[in-house]
């Protein structure tokens, strides 16, 4: 790693420092300016509305796994956008058409999921195809 490598990261560093400073200042101000009177009602998770019941750590419904899988798939497919974007200019229209095709194929999958109701929270996660 040589020095001018690091220089190319300088803006990033600046941005980082600014963000941290800003957030720190805001927290500090609120704690200094505002005053507080704690009470049981306030210290509840939901201050207004129903009183909480049961434990928060319940087993998730299968729907979550399903959505997680779908997310993984569509997320990972995005990988191929990076090299494509890198050489987009050399490829010109050819590259563009190819990528359109690629996205189109992904959209087919998306449409399939949608129609199958995998994204629908009200119906059971996977429409059971069998009479049973």
């Amino acid at each position, binding site marked *: 790693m040589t020095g001018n490598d690091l220089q190319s990261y300088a803006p990033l560093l600046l941005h980082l420092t600014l963000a941290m400073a800003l957030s720190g200042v805001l927290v500090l101000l609120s704690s200094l300016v505002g005053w507080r009177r704690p009470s049981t009602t306030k210290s509840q998770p939901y201050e207004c509305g129903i009183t909480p019941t049961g434990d928060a750590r319940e087993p998730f419904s*299968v729907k979550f*796994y399903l959505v997680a*899988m*779908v997310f*993984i*798939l569509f997320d*990972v*497919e995005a*990988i*191929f956008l990076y*090299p494509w974007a890198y050489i987009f200019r050399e490829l010109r229209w050819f590259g563009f058409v190819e990528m359109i095709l690629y996205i189109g194929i992904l959209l087919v999958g998306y449409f399939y999921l949608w129609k199958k109701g995998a994204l629908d929270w009200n119906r059971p996660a996977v429409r059971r195809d069998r009479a049973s």
Partner: protein
Amino acid sequence: MVPISYYLALSAVLFGLGVVAFIFKRNIITIFMAIELMLNAVNLAFVAFSRALGQLQGQVFVFFVIVVAAAEAAVGLAIIIVIARNRGTLNVERVDSLKH
């Protein structure tokens, strides 16, 4: 600069760990993660080689491997869920009705 052989040794060790975990773990999910470990060991090897050979091919391969691994993960998890639903267990030792 770190010699390539170290990367290779590391990937070999990871791969071996994956194999061992595959054989000795009982929970299907764990076994599945062992497979992922093996695949990532391979990715490491790819990247190391592409670095050593000074070409980008290896890293593109990694992309493909990752995507395929994701697809496998989706299918695998689906199958595992079905198994869990029908058998109520995730222990491979108990899923052995087909034998001999």
